[in-house]
């Protein structure tokens, strides 16, 4: 017997918009991982990320009936997620430049990769990011997460955050500079030889000038 093919995402969105709970549940299953991961990278804690994700999907359920089906669903979903994450960050108030290391560095699970010796310790990299990203302004952090970690195009990041693309580029420039300095200073084992090479280049911003050309 043939397995029933998964419903097309647009069809799911349309059906869920009509109040179909099963379609919404399927949409939730489809999107939950990215929502939680994005919220986690913005908030730095899994419990907070799950709370944010819960609020996000409740908002989606409440608002999907009014969602303009001509628009891109993911833009809306990311916008709700990022805004909820930023709100949570701001509600915490200033915690200083550096956050303490998370109690449980294995909040997220690293995907299995080949070659154990050669494989980067993603748990350690996560610790570094969570700590160093505490030094970023909430919107800078959101831009970095969407652009660098989630791989969203600059124009899409601008749409999600409701800001100009030039502002996205500016936030990204600042965030990269702060994170680069932090990882080279505090986590040299993750970037062996980076200091030498950077000083050889004589530039603090090797990649920034190439970003929009690429």
């Amino acid at each position, binding site marked *: 017997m043939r397995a029933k093919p998964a419903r097309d995402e647009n069809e799911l969105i349309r059906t869920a918009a009509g109040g179909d709970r099963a379609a919404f549940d399927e949409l939730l299953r489809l999107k939950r991982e990215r929502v939680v991961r994005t919220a986690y990278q913005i908030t730095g804690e899994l419990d907070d990320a799950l709370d944010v994700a819960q609020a996000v999907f409740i908002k989606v359920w409440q608002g999907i009936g009014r969602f303009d089906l001509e628009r891109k669903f993911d833009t809306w979903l990311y916008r709700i997620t990022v805004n909820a994450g930023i709100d949570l960050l701001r509600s915490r108030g200033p915690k200083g430049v550096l956050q303490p290391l998370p109690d449980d560095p294995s909040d997220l699970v*690293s995907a299995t990769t080949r070659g154990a010796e050669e494989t980067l310790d993603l748990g350690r990299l996560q610790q570094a990011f969570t700590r160093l990203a505490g030094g970023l302004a909430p919107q800078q952090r959101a831009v970095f997460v969407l652009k660098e970690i989630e791989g969203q195009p600059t124009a899409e990041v601008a749409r999600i955050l409701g800001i100009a693309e030039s502002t996205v580029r500016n936030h990204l420039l600042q965030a990269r500079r702060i994170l680069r300095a932090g990882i080279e200073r505090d986590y040299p084992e993750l970037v062996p030889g980076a200091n030498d090479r950077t000083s050889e280049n004589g530039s603090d911003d090797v990649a920034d000038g190439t970003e929009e050309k690429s």
Partner: protein
Amino acid sequence: MVTAGVGEPAATTGPTPPPHAVDPAEREQILRHVSGCRACRDRLVELDPGALFALLSLRQPPAAALDDLSRRVSAEIDAERRPVARVRFAAVASLAASVLLAVALGVYFKRAPVNEPDPFRADLESYLERLDRDSPVPGVELISSPGEAQVVDFKIGDTQVVMIFDEALNL
């Protein structure tokens, strides 16, 4: 090597992506390779150490946490639906009760209008108050029968009333 985000993915909608763009699946493939390849990683670090953080997209929330999230969302939606149903039922019930009460009162007042004067009743009360067999009132005629019977004959409005008082009378 594209330094910006280790391969900017192609947009799924909107303007045509630039020629270098990779789709999300290709991006993930590249990142998995970089994660496990020391040479590529060193090259990436050489260009931009911060670009290493793109590898964090390979990390996933635990499956149990995601299932728990689904349960929490479902429970909250269900919980939000129930009070709405209860409120709706209560609203309908109270509306029905109000209508029923209004109809009942309407029927009652229509059948027994309290403000409408009843001339017969008013006249009767007035006469009965003033009735005194020892001092006949105008319009009331007392007729003494040979026996013990007494007849009171009076008129209220257009109605003629005859009252017979006789202990021996057996109807």
